[in-house]
């Protein structure tokens, strides 16, 4: 029954992929609703299937195709897979709903059919990755996801910025596949099968398993945008259409999280130092991600960096899970793993909400530069409220969902007193301090984002003329915003419902207390205070009315933090001055230069790329295009093989 429903979902997505291509010359509102109908219904089917498995806790397995003995494609949905399938299905449904309004105003004519087809395959590929029964089909769909997402990023291919981002993304995503493939092959050598099964650790397999883990970790880190492999995110997100950004940031990054968790839980027996590695990588990403985010003026760039930060938080959870389970603290390990998974879901919800509502904003004002926005709360009241809920959730304000999962991380950190190793304890406390810094900076970052987009006066003519988004562009995000509230307020009940009774506060109680306190104060003041209000000018030191150019912009807002953390940005400031007099008092002339250093790009990516280019150039000399040379290569290879076989035999 449930496997049939799953296959029905797959077929709906395949229909969503094929119909737009079959009717490529057709393009009207009706056909587009049919395509989207397929995607939305497929997503809903997947969410229902996964919900069924999550609640009943009975794994489902579906055999699809035996390619040849030992290599087959099959699906297996257990609770972990169902959780991620639910995440993919529910978020994708909301994004697709948003698309219904968005595509109507998108450029590209009938090229939009390709867009639908791509979205459909993309969601399908991600769903099939998380339900893959073995590493072989995992890898297959992983590559499908990577390839389709590249086409989606390249949708607006006629802009040079997009082409650059696309190439960057393509290289990084292929590198990720390369490492994942390498990991899976090494794993095959260690265990002799492609199955997701526990790999026994012995003298022979131990080094192989460690190598497989390192390789898989790098592969998943690239996909998840963990620093230093993060650079593709701030390029790819601003360049792609907003629904694609929402899907990539909200959902695709979580597939990498799934991969890491799946391999750690099912296949490997993790060592303590693996956990330390993941924890340190996660903390670095979280701190640097938010520090870079706060400096961004491009709204989608800011959200991209904030994704890096949040993936860092998820990795912190996974790292803690490994550390605690290697130290034999099972309750803390459960809390940390739940924190990582719950934060994955929460991040998927609020980040796609933020990307979608900022997509509406960008659509209305035709710029991504927050410096040129402002005052949109009055022109776009509903969008402003939706964005606000997302911002409040990502800034971990209680009682929303971002707080609920960060609370779990904090609880795991605070309870880590029971870890025995003192050095490990100190490391955990340092990570805790950095984690708190991250959380506070992300609050600052989203005060900046919300403040400079929606508050004060409009800073450009386009902003004054902005209009509210269409109904479907509000409906999709509205569902996500409601989810932010529900997942937060009822987090305790949800966790208890799934059988996890944890020592964390019940956020429902605190929501009631908040409402009660607000209500009591309101009641108290309703009878005692004056109810008169008046509209006046903002105080401008006596000037009658100040222009919007005098208000604080986002750039100004983040300036103190940028100055405090200036050593991290590594901005180079040089100046030369000449003076008229000996004592350097009267300034004659001079030059000043501010150089923004793209640290990772200049010191890591480009050197590696140059090295690869030089290597390729060297090897290319062997390819001279002459048949005789190639024959000689073949001859030498055959002889070499014969000799090796002879020697070893």
């Amino acid at each position, binding site marked *: 029954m449930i496997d049939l429903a799953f296959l029905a979902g797959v077929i709906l997505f395949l229909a969503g992929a094929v119909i737009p291509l079959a009717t490529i010359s057709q393009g009207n509102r009706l056909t587009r609703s049919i395509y989207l109908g397929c995607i939305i219904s497929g997503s809903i089917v997947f969410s229902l299937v996964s919900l069924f498995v999550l609640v009943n806790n009975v794994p489902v397995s579906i055999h699809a195709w035996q390619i040849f003995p030992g290599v087959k494609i099959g699906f297996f949905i257990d609770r972990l897979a169902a959780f991620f399938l639910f995440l993919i299905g529910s978020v994708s449904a909301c994004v697709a709903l948003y698309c219904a309004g968005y595509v109507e105003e998108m450029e590209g004519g009938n090229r939009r059919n390709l867009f639908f087809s791509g979205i459909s395959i993309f969601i399908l590929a991600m769903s099939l990755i998380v339900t893959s029964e073995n590493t072989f089909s995992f890898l297959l769909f992983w590559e499908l996801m990577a390839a389709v997402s590249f086409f989606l990023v390249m949708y607006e291919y006629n802009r040079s910025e997009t082409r650059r981002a696309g190439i960057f993304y393509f290289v990084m995503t292929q590198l990720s596949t390369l490492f994942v493939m390498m990991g899976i092959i090494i794993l095959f050598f260690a265990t002799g099968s492609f199955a997701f099964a526990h790999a026994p650790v012995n003298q022979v397999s131990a080094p192989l398993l460690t190598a497989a883990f390192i390789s898989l970790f790098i592969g998943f880190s690239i996909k998840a945008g963990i620093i230093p492999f993060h650079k593709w995110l701030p390029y790819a997100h601003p360049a792609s259409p907003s629904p694609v950004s929402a899907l990539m940031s909200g959902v695709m990054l979580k597939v990498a999280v799934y991969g890491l968790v799946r391999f750690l839980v099912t296949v490997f027996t993790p060592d303590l130092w693996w956990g330390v590695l993941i924890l340190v990588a996660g903390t670095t990403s979280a701190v640097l991600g938010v520090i870079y985010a706060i400096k961004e003026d491009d709204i989608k760039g800011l959200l991209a960096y904030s994704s890096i930060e949040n993936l860092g938080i998820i990795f912190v959870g996974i790292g803690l899970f490994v550390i605690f389970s290697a130290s034999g603290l099972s309750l803390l390990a459960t809390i940390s793993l739940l924190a990582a998974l719950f934060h994955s879901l929460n991040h998927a919800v609020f980040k796609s909400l933020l990307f979608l509502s900022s997509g509406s904003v960008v659509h209305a004002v035709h710029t991504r530069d927050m410096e040129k926005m402002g005052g949109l709360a*009055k022109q776009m009241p509903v969008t402003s409220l939706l964005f606000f809920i997302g911002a409040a959730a990502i800034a971990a304000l209680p009682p929303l969902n971002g707080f609920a999962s960060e609370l779990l991380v904090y609880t795991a950190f605070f309870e880590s007193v029971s870890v025995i190793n003192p050095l490990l304890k100190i490391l955990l*406390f340092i990570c805790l301090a*950095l984690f708190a*810094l991250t*959380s506070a900076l992300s609050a600052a970052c989203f*005060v900046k984002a919300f403040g400079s987009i929606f508050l004060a006066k409009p800073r450009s003519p386009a902003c004054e003329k902005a209009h509210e988004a269409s109904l479907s562009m509000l409906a999709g995000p509205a569902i996500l915003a409601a989810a932010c509230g529900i997942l937060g307020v009822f987090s305790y009940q949800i966790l208890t419902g799934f059988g996890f009774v944890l020592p964390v506060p*019940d956020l429902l*109680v605190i929501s009631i207390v908040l409402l009660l306190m607000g209500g009591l104060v*309101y009641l108290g003041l309703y009878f005692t205070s004056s109810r008169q209000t008046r509209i006046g000018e903002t105080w401008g030191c006596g000037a009658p009315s100040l222009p919007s150019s005098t208000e604080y912009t986002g750039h*100004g807002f983040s300036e103190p933090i940028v100055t405090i953390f200036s050593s991290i940005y590594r901005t180079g400031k040089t100046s030369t001055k000449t003076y008229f007099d000996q004592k350097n008092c009267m300034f004659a002339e001079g030059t000043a230069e501010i150089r923004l250093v793209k640290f990772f790009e200049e010191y890591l990516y480009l050197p590696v790329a140059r090295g690869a280019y030089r290597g390729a150039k060297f090897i290319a000399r062997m390819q001279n295009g002459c048949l005789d040379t190639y024959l000689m290569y073949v001859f030498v290879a055959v002889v070499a093989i014969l000799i090796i076989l002879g020697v070893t035999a």
Partner: protein
Amino acid sequence: MTTDFFLYCIINTVCVALIAPLFVSLVKKVKAWTQGRQGPSLFQTYFTLAKLLKKEVIYSKDASWVSRAAPWICIAATLSASLFVPLVYVTEPMGGIGNIILFLYLLVLARFFMALGGLDAGSSFGGMGSSREMSISAVIEPTTIIVFAALAFVFRSLNIIDMASIAAATGTPVTPTLILLGISLFIILIVETARIPVDNPETHLELTMIHEGMILEQSGRNLALLELSSAVKQVVLMGLLINLIVPWGIATSLSLIPLAEAIGIFIVKAAFLALIIGLFESSMAKMRFFRLPSLFMMAFFFSTLIIIIEVFA
């Protein structure tokens, strides 16, 4: 919910709301004395709040729903946070109230709205205040969390109400760690309540103000709510320091005489702390904004020291 806890909630909230403005005036009075002035009456803050409530609210024409919502959310969040810190009576906590992380984030909730309220009217003073407030709060956060983690470590609990009962039960556990914790909590108190050397609560000069800058556009009832919520925040943080470090006299049973005694003792202790705050403020000049991170760094190393002592002790 047990009756005991219900009564705790009522007693605590009423105490906090009633005595919070007193200590705002008291610190002002102490500062006036050190400057050789007589200073305002001890009840001046109550008079000011009453006056503000009678006045009309003026909104800027550029302000959105944020300015209208911010004061209410600030007061709701701060009053909810005040439930987490027992002032005069301590009982068994319930339903996660008292959780130290939640306490911290309720204060963040209030701050988030206050900062947005500062940006809302489009005044550059407000923006400046919000920007500085968020920067300072970000930089002090690691210290705060380490101090809170150290508290959790020392008292073996994540719940402030539990910690207070443990402290009340053990009496006066004057250990080096607790003294260090007291100093760290004092620094956090100074930073969080916007006092010299971090911020100057008396100034309205654009170059120096942080907290005052954010609420510059607020008026009437809304201003009263924001003023009250900062007063509440101050007394709650003072209560945290007092009831964990010098917990004598807090009532553990619900009868009239111990409770009245506890209120009296708390007022005396808090008045003493307010005196220290006033003297501390008077003995210092406000620090240049970008010198603050080094002050916070010092506080951070201080609190990390506690952890290291605890870990290796």
